[in-house]
């Protein structure tokens, strides 16, 4: 293995930091039961809006304090990683597959396929994403599945636009002509020659999209349209925290910090992955 040059090491830091936080999320999601000190739903009106452990008036065992219904914030944050990750992975995969395929077809074939798909993308982008997602969830009914469908139905255009631009640029390269000369059929050229060069862009977008999916889920909970039960999500905790921010800032701060770090982790992880597996960058 080539001795890592400083530039090389600096670049992979963001990959490992991102990966570390994501791994932490997975760990918390899987072992939520064991990890959370209290029952995430248990309400105790005696323990309303307790400050975090290091502030005066805190209650031992409630490390990050409690919300206005006396529920332990740390436990709720840990349990909230489950819906967040489910939405992130499923919705992003759906959006990625659908969008990238259409983007590849539009970019590589051009002509009518390109015009129709581009028109479709235009129409989709005319809807403010948040408004469309709220509308979709209202239509499909408040449940995690409708959130996932809403995100996939909206964000596929993000993949389609990037992949289309990349495919159009690749199409003009001589190695595509060389593949034609070798007798490859169009599908094989798209899969073997164009796709490998588009993958790094898709990888970055996919991880960015996971971050965005978590945000959209948080926004939907914020306007109380996410999952119906009061199973905790960062969004619902933030919504509650926003209301009482002057009295109990910590109810908002901790879930917000988690969301902030998660989004950053996903984006830096994506960038790091792209640089890691892109032979030209290595």
């Amino acid at each position, binding site marked *: 293995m080539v001795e890592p040059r400083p530039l090389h090491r600096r670049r992979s830091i963001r990959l490992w930091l991102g990966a570390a936080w994501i791994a932490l999320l997975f760990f918390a999601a899987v072992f939520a039961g064991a990890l959370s000190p209290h029952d995430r739903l248990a309400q105790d009106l005696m323990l309303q809006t307790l400050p975090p452990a290091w502030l005066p008036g805190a209650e031992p065992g409630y490390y990050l304090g409690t919300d206005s219904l006396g529920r332990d914030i740390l436990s709720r944050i840990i349990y909230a990683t489950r819906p967040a990750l489910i939405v992130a992975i499923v919705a992003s995969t759906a959006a990625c597959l659908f969008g990238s395929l259409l983007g590849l077809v539009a970019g590589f074939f051009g002509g009518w396929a390109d015009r129709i798909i581009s028109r479709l993308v235009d129409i989709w982008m005319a809807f403010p994403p948040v408004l469309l997602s709220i509308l979709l969830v209202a239509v499909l009914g408040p449940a995690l599945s409708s959130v996932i469908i809403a995100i996939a139905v909206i964000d596929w255009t993000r993949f389609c636009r990037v992949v289309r631009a990349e495919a159009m640029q690749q199409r003009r390269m001589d190695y595509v002509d060389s593949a034609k000369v070798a007798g490859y059929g169009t599908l*094989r050229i798209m899969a073997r*020659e164009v796709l*490998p060069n588009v993958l790094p862009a898709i990888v970055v977008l996919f991880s960015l999209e996971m971050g965005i999916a978590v945000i959209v889920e948080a926004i939907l909970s914020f306007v109380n349209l996410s999952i119906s039960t009061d199973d905790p999500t960062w969004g619902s905790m933030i919504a509650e925290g926003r209301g009482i921010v002057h009295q109990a800032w910590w109810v908002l701060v901790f879930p917000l910090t988690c969301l902030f770090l998660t989004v950053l982790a996903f984006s830096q992880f994506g960038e790091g992955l792209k640089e890691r597996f892109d*032979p*030209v960058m290595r």
Partner: protein
Amino acid sequence: MTEPLFRIDNLRLSLPDMTRKPLFGPAPRIEILKGLTFDIAAGSTIGIVGESGSGKSTLGRALVRLYEPTGGAIGFDGQDITHLSDAALRPLRRDLQVIFQDPFSSLNPRKSVGAIIAAPLLFHRVATSGADSRARVAAALGAVGLPRAFASRYPHELSGGQRQRVGIARAIALSPRFVLADEIVSGLDVSSQAQILDLLARLKDELKLTLAFISHDLSVVRRLCNRVIVMRGGEIVENRDTAALFDAPEHPYTRQLLAAIPLPEIDPGWLEAG
């Protein structure tokens, strides 16, 4: 006279003019090849020479059917391939290979040199197994003077000359009957240019190839080719044996081209000579 490998009859081709493409709407089409008729004898090396915009590259791509002609006919090995579908062309593809000009865009940056050379071998089932394909890749690299270890390297790690050799290796690995070399030395220094042309001349004889060599540099063509076509504005201006063309050029344009080449020797009057 053996049966010519290529028989071209009144070849016409027009392409959309992307430079005048309006922001929205189809681009106007302009005719690039305006009725070309010529043969390419099997085993010969034909130079296709012309200045930029003469249509020489387009002609080259039409020969290997990267473009479909809009008129006339292309006969390859006695078969009319003018309007063959991609599927029908596929079996012939093995015999029609191309070496591209820009070494930076002709090799897929994300594939290793070995994969680039092996892929067509496996696709056409020339290589029967992994081991066989690795052997053929090594042989092809050896033939172009590159060490076997280059198979695991990536295009961005190679110099311009080395990449061009990989391009040649990819083309000859399929032991084709016809190879098109599209301005393959224009981007190189004089010393690597000399090495590549020397290599090509040797391979041509060893593998009994028919070679079409596209260039804007008549001096390079003189060294390598036994027949020369001079093109201007999509038409053939002169089509002669090399020696005859250089010793007694018939067409004024050819004479003008030759007169414009600065030979590396003192010649005070050259600048003034119109």
